[in-house]
């Protein structure tokens, strides 16, 4: 009896150890790439040359960051990205929430028709070329608002808002109506203040999208001054175009400052906001995915 239970204990123990090790490996594989960028951005440029495997910077230096923060183009990209993230997110949340509140009213006339119109867009879409032509015709090509207006609304987020609004007790709204509040009054004074959790979730979804997107910039933007940071990074990394920043760095530091360490430093600058907000992001976004999954 004792032998048997000990044997069983050992078998489970072995699995547990193996499984724990596997999970630790997963964590390592996940974290190391970011750590790699971090240490190489801080490494003295000549050491960061081709990215050898290492754990700590061999010689600390902030030269690469100095170049990045002195680069007018990159800083302008940072500004454009921040601007589109703030405006794009605010517009998306406000617009989608207002539509969703209207849709959540059970007495809304034409509700079925509206819902059907929206569902069709989930099944069919025009795709890249027709959308591109539309943007051109609307004057949104090479225009800052191309980041904001086409992303102002998604059916998926509307449904998330709508189902959340339905959970707010109607008595709250009724009492405000008795006090003479209009529908807009109820929405802005009662419903939205009671929906902060879902607003936070959708805002983060939207903000992460705006911060990380490089593709809109590649397709719709030609003017250098309107390029978001990620699109610039795309050009520096994938197309290996010598940016203004690198040319300047070459002149300043000579061959001592290879492109790689500047690349790493600009990658770090572009990722820091995401990493700083990660605790909130992961808390709210995971909740959002759950809501979406249940609805879907």
């Amino acid at each position, binding site marked *: 009896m004792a032998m048997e239970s000990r044997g069983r204990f050992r078998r*489970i123990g072995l699995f*547990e150890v193996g*499984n*724990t090790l596997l*999970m630790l490996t*997963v*964590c390592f*594989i*996940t974290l190391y*790439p970011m750590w*790699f*960028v971090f240490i190489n951005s801080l490494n003295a440029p000549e050491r960061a040359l*081709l*990215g*050898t*495997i290492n754990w700590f910077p061999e010689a600390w230096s902030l030269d690469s960051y100095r170049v990045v923060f002195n680069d007018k183009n990159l800083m302008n990209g940072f500004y454009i990205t921040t601007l589109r993230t703030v405006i794009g997110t605010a517009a998306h949340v406000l*617009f989608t929430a*207002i*539509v969703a509140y*209207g*849709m959540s*009213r059970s*007495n*809304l*006339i*034409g509700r079925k028709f*509206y819902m059907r119109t929206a569902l069709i*867009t989930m099944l*069919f*879409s*025009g*795709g*890249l*070329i*027709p*959308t*591109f*032509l*539309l943007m051109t015709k609307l004057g949104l090509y090479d225009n800052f608002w191309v980041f904001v207006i*086409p992303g102002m*609304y998604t059916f998926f987020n509307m449904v998330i808002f709508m189902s959340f609004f339905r959970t707010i007790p109607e008595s709250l709204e009724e009492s405000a109506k008795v006090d003479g509040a209009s*529908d*807009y009054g109820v929405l802005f004074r009662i419903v939205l203040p009671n929906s902060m959790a879902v607003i936070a979730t959708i805002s983060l979804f939207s903000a992460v999208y705006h*911060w*990380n997107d*490089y593709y809109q910039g590649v397709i719709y933007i030609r003017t250098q001054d309107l390029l978001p940071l*990620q699109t610039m*990074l795309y050009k520096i*990394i*994938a197309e290996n175009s010598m940016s203004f920043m690198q040319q300047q760095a070459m002149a300043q530091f000579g061959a001592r400052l290879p492109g790689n360490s500047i690349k790493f430093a600009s*990658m770090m600058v*572009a*990722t820091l906001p*995401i990493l700083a907000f*990660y605790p909130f*992001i*992961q808390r709210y976004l*995971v909740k959002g*995915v759950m809501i979406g999954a249940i609805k*879907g």
Partner: protein
Amino acid sequence: MKGKEAVKMSQHRSGQMKAFFRQWQVQSMVIPGIVWMFVFCYIPMFWLIIAFMDYSIAKPMLHSPLVGLKHFEDFAADDRFWRSIRNTLGMSAIKLALGFPIPILFALLLNEIRSLRFKRAVQTISYLPHFIAWTIFGGILLNWLGEGGVMNQLMMALGIQDREILYNSDPQYFWWIVYFSDVLKETGWSAIIYIAAIAGIDPALYEAAELDGANRWQRMWHITIQCIRPTIAILFILAVSGMLGSNFEQIFMLKNNMNMRMAESLDLYIYNMGLVSGRHSFSTAVLFARSVVALGLLLLANYTSKKLSGESIF
């Protein structure tokens, strides 16, 4: 009789109109959303008809000459089109066969971790890469796969290769780079939905199975997998119907002139033909054909799943 009914109808209708105007505030909230959808979803759908025209962006669409199926015949005769089909299907097949089970496996194994704190920490860390932009993630990959990069150092240290290989310039590695980078970036995130499904399983089931002497693997197979089968089926349907698509942000980041032979997916082909070469009608014809086939795939996958497992999305 008929006159009376008509009067009733019109009364009913005018009553509805009145009710509609009485709720103008709520309507004014919804209608902008409908207008937005009309402009940004329905107009592009309507614009698909340029697939049957020789459309030029300088002229109004209705002045463009109709050419019937000319563009469809053109792309069907283009080797590069068939190459892009092969690439898309190849990459999707690898992703589906070898990539689809990984988040499920990860969720199962994570579920076996006893310490709640460790479990949560691993989960939180595992979806970090999902939030890293493709420019950053791709930048790291390109650095690691390049000359003197981490990959080469590792392979040479392990004695697997004796000289440097430029992984990203050699087309034969491209599909695998796409597969592995997708697994690295998205496993934790895709697992969330399975982890949530597993968390919803009634613990009494496990207790009963344990009393009946089921071991860990039997419990995993007969309880966990069976309980999350609906979730798996639905995600599988969606994955199959998405086979003609690709992760454009990923491929666009990793492609270059050297690996284009294996990298040009259907999405990239449409982009290259339509926006780089400016053949709008031609590319739209490809888009049109793809939407039709994708819809067919969705219906087929849905039907098959309904027959085999009883699960379907509609």
